[in-house]
């Protein structure tokens, strides 16, 4: 067994810790850092409840060791809200009633955010493919798709401001 000193930026805050090589990222985030918004479902990379962003990539945090995240930047569901204002994806899930029990919601929202970062104009099919690694046993997905469409529209609208003001952007 080896212990490793790691330094990981999560939602803008740098966390340093000594972790066992076998500690899974999701366990460190939940049990070590008490960021319990990230859920554990299947434990085998099937359900997507543990989805977070690692260096901007949607990642199932049950299938990565904490030590692998050393030096990387992570965003969890707790990082979506800014200054008391909901992220458009959170607003979309609220407005469109995209959750019932809520267990899959954090992972579903992170998969949705990753999708919209890559593809700001997703078709319904793009969205369904984009969240196909995330299981929901309550909603039947219809309202989740609507919520992501809501967020897409909202994010496009807010991004038009800097573009028309002559800002480059990515």
């Amino acid at each position, binding site marked *: 067994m080896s212990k*490793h000193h790691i330094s990981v930026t999560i939602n803008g805050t740098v966390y340093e810790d000594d972790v066992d*090589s076998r500690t899974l990222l999701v366990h460190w985030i939940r049990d070590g850092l008490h960021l319990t918004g990230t859920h554990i479902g299947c434990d085998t990379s099937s359900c997507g409840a543990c989805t977070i962003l690692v260096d901007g990539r*949607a*990642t199932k945090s049950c299938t990565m060791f904490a030590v692998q995240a050393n030096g990387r930047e992570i965003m969890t569901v707790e990082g979506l809200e800014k200054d008391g204002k909901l992220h458009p994806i959170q607003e979309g899930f609220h407005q469109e009633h995209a959750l019932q029990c809520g267990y899959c919601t954090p992972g579903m929202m992170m998969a949705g955010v990753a999708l919209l970062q890559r593809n700001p104009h997703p078709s319904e099919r793009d969205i369904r493919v984009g969240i196909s*690694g995330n299981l929901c046993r309550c909603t039947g997905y219809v309202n989740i798709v609507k919520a992501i469409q809501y967020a897409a529209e909202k994010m496009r609208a807010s991004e038009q401001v800097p573009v028309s003001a002559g800002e480059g952007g990515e």
Partner: protein
Amino acid sequence: MIPGSFDYVVANSVPEAVALLQQHGDDAKILAGGHSLIPLLRFRLAAPAVLIDINRISELEYIQESDGVLHIGALTREAALDDSELIGERYPILRDTASGVADPVVRNWATVGGNLAHADPANDHPATMLALGASVVAEGSGGRRVIPIDEFFTDAPFETALHADEILVEIRIPAPGERSGGAYCKLERKVGDYAIAGVAACVTLDANGLVTRAGIGLTNVGAHPIKARAAEQALIGKPLDEANIQHAADLAAAAAQPTSDIRGPAEYKRAMVHTLCVRALRRALARATGATEGR
């Protein structure tokens, strides 16, 4: 489901990874995307003493075509293959394959090299690489060597021709000549599950529409990835008409060695190999001739 204890080391270059493999031998496993290995560790089906993490060797992530060969770095993520314009335009069979591996979140980390080196007969790339006539490049203490893909897999599942101190560094695929096309068709119960069965088919036609090269690979219908040689041979020199497609599919189904399990009885899987082979050959033909593809 916590894995047993192991030591973890980061390799920052291929020579570093090889040196670590030399040091630890069979006790070590390479950690690439980890989406096969980490679940195995969690179920305690594998218990290596050392994991060598190669995820930071970014020079192993590339997709480029040069001198009539497509070179894919072993650490190339499935998502990168799926997104690549070069792949979409010139090698649609690889897009078919990559876009069907697990799910989009898994594909952000899962690697093409890992999919091959893990040598799970249920993995998708082995069949496609067998159909394409690919080769792989291994690097070890003795330098680099090129291994034809049909010599890379053995008769046993999860076993390859790699030596204990070798790491897979590149996949090489001959660039398609004129009138070439390929397709991968996979049947799965749900997104993220392994294939019930999958068939990869590639063809090259001459100016008269006769087949000059055919490659057919089968997924998850045997203890190892299967190259349907009799089906390939039967197509050579023939037009790819419906009768010949059906005949090749009969031979491909006969080459399958499925077993009955939760994904269905053996006879059902054999029938699906037939159906998928017909579809893959029709789509390969459409791509080879520039016809509009049906779905």
